[in-house]
């Protein structure tokens, strides 16, 4: 929607009269305002579709078979249908964060009032780079954060409506809408986390956050145990407050799974982290929790059934996941607790203070009555495994293709090692046990062989500090810090613990900056080196070369894109305000940041990654993520790598495919590591910076593939780019390839290579 009234409305919302920065070209952009930027990006990084389903069954015209050149009854083809489904997935992901943000902001406004100020400490002045860049608003209060989420929600309505039958019909336009809504996902995540940080007084402006215990071996089973599951810290923080007020903090264990675990440890370092999402069913079935408080997102939908089996009770505390339970928010606490204790009743409580009180009081009464089952010993485990008839049903249904059946057979023979391996790689979906026709209790067996080790997780620290950006901005942009690697989101991938820990270790050792969020941030702590140290004990938590930084939960992902924006703002002095194209162009061409979503499962991961893509940050995905259906791939030899030389205002064919892809699936951790190193290369790299980046790329490639990279000639601009250590062999390789020097630009930009109102001058300060 364009028009004078709309413009005035936007100016009022963003307080245009505040002159903190000039207003850029796209304040509060509507769905199509950044369409040309998207189309330019997708010219180079074309959508690659791998349809997961050949049909469309969204309306009563169908089912329609869209195979090959077939079209649906409405006229849609298979490409547009993939774009449509991807758009829907991104809308689902964004709406989860928008819903979280809207709820937590309202909850905190109830507590503190609308005018509660945003203060992220003395080291963070650029408080909300995403909101500043996208909306053009410099938020000052909780009310302003609510305004940002309301704007994003309005955009969501427009984008979801485009997926209705007979609306959008072009794949690239669908992708533009997915990019738009995913950019706004980062706005919503930022609003949610900043609200949480100020409202709950989470750590901020500090790098060295505490280390907390992780693993269910760290939980004292003799105490009443409250498990919090999900993403929203409203209930868990109320639980901590209730325990503190009653002097019970050392008498009741509070442990968390998934992002609520990270949030709760940001509130209390006595809280324990059970582990990532993949440990949910295992832990619930272990029966260690007396009360389970579920909030929102990534909660198993069979949670109440599973809890009932082991005598735990569930309090659902979010309107997004009522789970068919009776709402008892207005009933007296004693009455609710009695029903839970005497009858094992689960309930829905939408008042978080009340939910906390009920959770603690119920846990105190239930715990003494329950006989918590001890894990079965090895002898018993072997006995139970002997019921296996080697039918292979369990192996057949495993989504991670794990050899469950053969491992059970080995266990029956007395060898538990293969089964331990299966447990370590298991995502805990429970399909194997469900499929077993002989009733082998596969889950119990896994618990029996599971390690009782405990680990350490660093508490999430929120935004990267402005002072850190000042220090590392130049080396990142010049290339002398070879890259920022962000391992984000779920960890539902094969060999999750080993692979993610190995990747983090490899890049931290090579002095990249490694940041982590969500389940990946927990997973990485679940591996110890020979000295018994976890990654968090081995590397510092600074946003600096060789640092390993736990940024926080899912919503903290916005601080990663925020850090990239801050580099443009604080180091390069580019204004953020409503200046998305310029900032994204800067990040794409000059900031060597790469996202890694190795175990991505959810729709949220789709929108988080797609939001990174619009900002020019490439994302590497694990093998099963091909089921997201869409990647953004270039063709390095056939692609057009022309950019504008911002200083000379001339188009230059750089012949350099950097970054080579925006979203790619890799098959193995080895390949992923090589790809990550390559995707850190940027056209703006100085020659010493390029030497360092190529040194790592070549070294990793040789380590895993045995030779120099096949495509090395594409990334050597002049002989001065060649790392000293490999000089001789690289020169010989280049000669064989018929390599010729390429242009080196100090100010590469896409602005000026497509239709945009933004002048080339806007890229220079």
């Amino acid at each position: 929607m364009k028009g004078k009234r709309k413009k005035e409305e936007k100016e009022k919302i963003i307080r245009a009269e505040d002159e903190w920065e000039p207003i850029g070209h796209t304040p509060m952009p509507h769905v199509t305002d950044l369409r040309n930027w998207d189309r330019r990006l997708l010219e180079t990084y074309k959508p690659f579709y791998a349809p997961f389903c050949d049909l469309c069954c969204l309306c009563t015209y169908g089912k329609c078979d869209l195979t090959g050149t077939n079209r649906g009854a409405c006229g849609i083809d298979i490409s547009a249908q993939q774009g449509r489904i991807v758009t829907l997935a991104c809308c689902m992901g964004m709406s989860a964060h928008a819903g979280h943000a809207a709820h937590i902001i309202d909850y905190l406004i109830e507590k503190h009032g609308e005018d509660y100020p945003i203060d992220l400490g003395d080291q963070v002045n650029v408080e909300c780079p995403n909101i500043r860049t996208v909306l053009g608003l410099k938020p000052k209060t909780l009310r302003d954060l609510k305004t940002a989420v309301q704007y994003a929600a309005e955009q969501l309505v427009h984008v979801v409506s485009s997926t209705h039958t007979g609306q959008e019909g072009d794949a690239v336009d669908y992708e533009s809408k997915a990019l738009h809504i995913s950019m706004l996902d980062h706005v919503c995540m930022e609003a949610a986390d900043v609200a949480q940080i100020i409202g709950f007084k989470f750590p901020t402006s500090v790098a060295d956050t505490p280390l907390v215990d992780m693993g269910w071996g760290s939980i004292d089973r003799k105490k009443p145990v409250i498990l919090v599951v999900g993403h929203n810290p409203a209930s868990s923080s109320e639980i901590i407050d209730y325990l503190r007020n009653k002097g019970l903090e050392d008498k009741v264990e509070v442990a968390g799974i998934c992002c609520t675990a990270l949030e709760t440890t940001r509130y209390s370092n006595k809280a324990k982290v059970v582990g990532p999402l993949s440990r949910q069913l295992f832990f619930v079935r272990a029966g260690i929790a007396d009360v389970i408080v579920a909030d929102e997102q990534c909660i198993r939908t069979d949670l109440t059934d599973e809890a009932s089996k082991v005598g735990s009770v569930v309090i659902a505390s979010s309107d997004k996941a009522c789970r068919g339970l009776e709402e008892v928010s207005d009933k007296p606490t004693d009455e609710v607790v009695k029903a839970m204790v005497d009858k094992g009743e689960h309930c829905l409580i939408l008042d978080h203070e009340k939910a906390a009180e009920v959770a603690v009081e119920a846990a105190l009464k239930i715990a003494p009555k329950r006989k918590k089952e001890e894990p079965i010993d090895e002898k018993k485990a072997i006995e139970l495994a002997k019921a296996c008839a080697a039918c292979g049903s369990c192996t057949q249904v495993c989504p991670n293709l794990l050899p469950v059946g053969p491992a059970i057979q080995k266990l029956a023979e007395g060898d538990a090692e293969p089964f331990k391996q299966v447990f370590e790689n298991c995502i805990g979906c429970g399909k194997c046990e469900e499929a077993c026709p002989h009733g082998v209790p596969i889950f119990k067996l896994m618990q029996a062989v599971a390690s009782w080790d405990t680990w350490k997780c660093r508490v999430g620290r929120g935004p990267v500090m402005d002072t850190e950006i000042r220090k590392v901005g130049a080396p990142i942009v010049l290339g002398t810090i070879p890259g920022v690697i962000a391992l984000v989101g779920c960890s539902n991938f094969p060999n999750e613990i080993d692979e993610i820990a190995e990747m983090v270790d490899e890049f931290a050792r090579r002095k990249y900056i490694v940041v982590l969020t969500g389940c990946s941030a927990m997973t990485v702590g679940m591996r110890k080196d020979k000295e018994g140290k976890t990654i968090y004990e081995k590397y510092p938590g600074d946003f600096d070369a060789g640092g390993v930084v736990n940024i926080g939960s899912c919503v903290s992902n916005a601080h990663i894109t925020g850090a990239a924006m801050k580099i443009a703002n604080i180091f390069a002095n580019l204004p953020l305000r409503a200046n998305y194209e310029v900032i994204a162009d800067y990040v794409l061409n000059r900031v060597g940041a790469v996202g890694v979503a190795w175990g991505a499962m959810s729709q949220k991961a789709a929108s988080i990654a797609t939001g990174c893509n619009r900002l020019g940050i490439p994302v590497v995905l694990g093998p099963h993520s091909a089921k997201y259906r869409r990647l953004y791939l270039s063709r390095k030899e056939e692609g057009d790598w022309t950019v504008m030389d911002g200083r000379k205002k001339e188009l230059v064919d750089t012949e350099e495919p950097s970054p080579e892809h925006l979203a790619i699936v890799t098959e193995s951790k080895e390949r992923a590591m090589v790809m990550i190193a390559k995707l850190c290369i940027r056209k703006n790299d100085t020659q010493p910076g390029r030497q360092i980046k190529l040194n790592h790329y070549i070294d990793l490639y040789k380590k895993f593939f045995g030779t120099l990279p096949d495509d090395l000639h594409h990334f050597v601009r002049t002989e001065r780019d060649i790392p000293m250590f490999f000089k001789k062999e690289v020169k010989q390789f280049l000669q064989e390839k018929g390599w010729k020097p390429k242009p080196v630009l100090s100010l590469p930009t896409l602005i000026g290579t497509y239709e945009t109102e933004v002048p080339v001058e806007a890229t220079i300060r």
Partner: protein
Amino acid sequence: MPHPQHLVNILTGIKGAMEMKDATPLAKIIKKAERPLLVIGPRALEVEIEGRPFIEYLVDIAKAANIPICATAHTKKKLLELGMTPESTYDVVEIVNALKDAEWKGVKGEGCHDFVLFGGIRTDLGNQALSTLKHFAPHLKTMTLCKYYYPNANFSLPNYKKEEEWKALLEGLVAGLK
């Protein structure tokens, strides 16, 4: 199952691969191809057939019919150890992205491939990659050599429960291609 008159109500949506249990017709199909390509993935390094790595069978097939190899993931190193230099190294989605283009010059610069064999790709990723080719690459045919059925290929081996049956087929294929 019998289909009702109005297919729109029951379409399953998979144009299924032809299941190939016999090596002889498979060898004939491959021999007919003008520019075949063998894509080898990392599962070929992990999977053994009666003690012999799957990748060695794939190398035998490539040698028997002089088929160029695209090494995906980190398979290149092992191929070099086996004395086989792959013509190209890509991620599987990258080679599939190139194969979609009928004008692509192929791994040897002689033109796009008309027949692509896959071995050693994870089943989920492999089937997604084959889905791309099924929909967007009508100019080529695909075939899988793993011991699982891949519905999105044109030709696939069945789900083998017995390793010896899979081994027999692969060995028969090598013999048939010589």
